[in-house]
């Protein structure tokens, strides 16, 4: 039976390009700078090549320098879709008319991510109270793990005004920069997504020896590929099916391995419920949420 499914899927992928509208033979996909932009581009490049080879659709990538930029520049740059993060995904669905297509599963089998609030082990910071008067590094206003959750958590601890509680706060622009800021003592406290933190520790175990995780956020959706709802159903289906079946062929597996992904799974708006719930609990509205850096 399995071979039959394989044959049908291959036939579908083989024949589908002919069904694709000519204006959709080229797609521009946006990336957010969850890690530094060079590493991020390097990570996604093999995927765009794979998609082009399998679907006949030329997939070009564009990376934005700030998380929030993807919302502002999506239409301006003529993007057809993007890999959105937790909060940018919600903002995009509400503001840009995009729909979730697929999201990744990490090698450990997890399809969601969580945030950490980290400090140096030698910092004598063990509680939120110890953070008073210190410097905190957030990632970007348009991330849950790198900003929204920490704010939510601090509020739950009675800290309403971070301007008063911390001596200084700033935005690093990427999750890995937030880790390095704490490592170097350029910030006392940092916020980071677990996958980025764990990849850095895997690459350099000394990072794990020097930092400690004080707080962990609930699970959030991660790097979800969303495409414009206005794209034809054939295009969306072709992209979705190709990505979903990537882990079934050796070439696809190699690409996934490079991206440190096990496979892609189908994504839906429901995946973003934790983000919607958090916004609601904080009394924030997607329409008025200030995701831009001042």
């Amino acid at each position, binding site marked *: 039976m399995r071979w039959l499914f394989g044959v049908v899927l291959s036939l579908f992928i083989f024949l589908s390009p002919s069904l694709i509208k000519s204006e959709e033979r080229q797609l521009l996909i946006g990336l957010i700078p969850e890690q530094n932009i060079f590493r991020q581009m390097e990570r996604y490049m093999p995927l765009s090549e794979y998609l082009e080879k399998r679907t006949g659709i030329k997939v070009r990538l564009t990376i934005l320098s700030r998380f929030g930029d993807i919302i502002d520049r999506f239409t301006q740059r003529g993007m057809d879709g993007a890999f959105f993060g937790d909060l940018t995904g919600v903002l995009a669905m509400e503001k840009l008319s995009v729909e979730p297509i697929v999201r990744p599963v990490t090698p450990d089998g997890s399809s969601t991510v969580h945030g950490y609030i980290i400090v140096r082990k030698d910092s004598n910071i063990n509680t939120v109270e110890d953070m008073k008067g210190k410097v905190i590094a957030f990632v970007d206003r348009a991330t849950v793990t790198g900003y929204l959750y920490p704010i939510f958590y601090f509020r739950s601890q009675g800290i309403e005004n971070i301007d008063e509680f911390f001596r200084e706060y700033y935005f690093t622009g990427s999750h890995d920069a937030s880790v390095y800021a704490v490592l*170097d003592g*350029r*910030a006392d406290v940092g916020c980071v997504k677990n996958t980025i933190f764990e990849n850095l520790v895997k690459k350099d175990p000394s990072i794990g020896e*020097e930092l400690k995780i004080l707080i962990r956020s609930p699970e959030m959706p991660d790097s979800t590929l969303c495409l414009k709802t206005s794209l034809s159903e054939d295009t969306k289906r072709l992209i979705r099916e190709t990505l979903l079946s990537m882990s079934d062929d050796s070439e696809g597996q190699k690409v996934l391995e490079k991206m440190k992904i096990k496979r892609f799974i189908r994504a839906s708006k429901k995946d973003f419920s934790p983000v919607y719930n958090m916004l609601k609990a904080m009394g924030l509205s997607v329409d008025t949420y200030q995701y831009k850096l001042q």
Partner: protein
Amino acid sequence: MRGQSTASLSGTAKRFFLIISIILFLVCQGGPLHASEKTVVGVIFSADIPYYRAIHQAFSRVIKERGYAGKIQLIIQRPNPDTLAWSNAIRKVLAYDASIIITYGSGAAFQATYETTSVPIVYAGVYAPDKIDLKKKNVYGVGFRVPVSSLLRYLRQMKEIKRLGIVFSEIEPDSVQQMKDVVNSCRRFSLPYVQLSVKRCREVKERLKLYNYDSLFLTNSALVGKYYPDCKGISDTNTVPAVTTMKGYEDLVIVTLTPDTEIEGALLADILIDLLRGKKPENKIVTNNKLVFNMKKAKKLGISFPIELITGADRVIK
């Protein structure tokens, strides 16, 4: 009668003389009293290096802003970085009746503890003071903590290190402590290293010439800070990349991770003001650091600078 009259006159005269004496005393004391309101503060730089100058500048600014500039008289000494010169400088300010001694760098701070146990000593620009024996009744200060492992991490990302030379001063306890911390990090990273120990000015050049290394770590030291810039002529210092935790060497090395001297200066001023008010100050540690990459120097040394590194830097020299 006469006797009574004389006694009465004598009483009036006594009162008169007493009042005049008090007035004269107050008038005469007015000037000196005003002058003696200024507290004499001896300031000893372990060496005249940019790092200490930056802290002192910030300190002076805060003292002025908070209205204490007119209440203190600073006697500044910038001796050469050796124990005898530090001792002489401290004795000199004590001879000027300094009520408080400020020292920049651990060398002068330690020497001051040998010279006086009663005059308060306030140190600044000292690496990890909690790890060195600076805990004395009359000693307060502002130290800093910079993760030396971060500097090694950046260096490793730029080039393969075959042997790291760690330049440190034996006469400065915090420089020795930092050397030990660098050695520990080298062991964790499995990096070969060589310790370049110096005690006197001429040894800085000698050690740099004597040993083989392909990267340098300049520890926090008045001696190293004062004489390393003179070693530019040594071929190795022209060809190997160096890193340091001392501010003011950004043009000579490729990476600096330094404490924020503005904060160090401000905290030093806080301690001095506490002492002037008769309050017991608390020791402070600065943990907020500034990262500077020197791409220009890296290029000269033929090191390709990973551009991704610079995104988090506070400053990049191009």
